[in-house]
């Protein structure tokens, strides 16, 4: 389908390799200040960028990503290149209203991107 090809064959321009980028999240912007007491926001980061052959060592590519990269190179119609995704995530403590409307301090796992890679 045309849309499919559209997504797969973007204009031949220079693209950034898979990397971690900043994304400061303000809970007020998400409408979450009603259930989150503290903090008021945090640096969550996100991952974005290309996963093209050859994959650099720091890309922490899985075996599957290495295979998919090569399949895409040999035949872009068969599969897209792997996605740039978090390889390591850290936790964040949050003071918030729980189900019983008590304000509790708890750990929220996998909130902050520590590193990105090709997956």
């Amino acid at each position, binding site marked *: 389908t045309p849309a499919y090809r559209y997504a797969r064959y973007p204009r031949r321009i220079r693209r950034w390799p898979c990397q971690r980028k900043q994304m400061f999240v303000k809970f007020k912007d998400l409408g979450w200040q009603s*259930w989150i007491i*503290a903090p*008021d926001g*945090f640096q969550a980061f996100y991952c974005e960028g290309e996963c093209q052959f050859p994959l650099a060592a720091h890309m922490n590519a899985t075996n599957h990503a290495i295979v998919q990269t090569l399949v895409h190179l040999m035949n872009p119609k068969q599969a897209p290149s792997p996605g740039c995704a978090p390889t390591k995530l850290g936790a964040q*403590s*949050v*003071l918030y209203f729980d189900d019983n409307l008590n304000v*509790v*301090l*708890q750990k929220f796992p996998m909130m902050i991107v520590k590193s990105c890679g090709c997956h």
Partner: protein
Amino acid sequence: HIPDNDNINDINFHTGSRPSPSDELPIPPLHENPDRAFDPSPQDLDYKANRKMLGKKFDRNFMQVVKPLEHIFHPDGMLNIRFRKGRPKGRRPEFIKDFGHKISFGDDIVKKLGVDKRTKKLMQKYLWNYTYCPLIYKWKDLGIRFWPRWIKEGSCYKGRSCSIPPGMQCKTKSSKPITLLRWHCKDWNTDRKCSWIEIQYPIITECACSC
């Protein structure tokens, strides 16, 4: 499916659209917005008024308004061990009670302990001590936006491995919440009136040996 007792703040109500917490301890320190406008002023730190607000929930064993003496004498914490008759105080773990039974591999190979009852109890006592995971209590300053600001945190003793063969470590088993006051400005807007709200802070109360 909207439940009858529809609580818009119920985290489960928003499954998929809100992050989920975990019960794991210890928790990383809360990250504080450095703007001092969000701090309580001296008049908000009145001991009598705040003490009255907390009421019975004030637990002097776990919270203090000024830097505790214990913190000055034991800045790295104090081991919380209590022994009774040479072994840890409290209920005997199941695996200690079961220790000493016949070992069997398959159908016909069986190995026994081969000692009398009294010696077996000595061994059980030793293993109980060996696999025991004591608590360490350490005073921590939560900062000016908490009242009282000093709390006694629990953590698990991490020295040698607590298992035979070695490999397992002492980790959090149980916790309980203590009640504190938190200075909060609604919507993090200093034009709004800020006030003290009651919050629950988790304290580790028990450790156990696990992988």
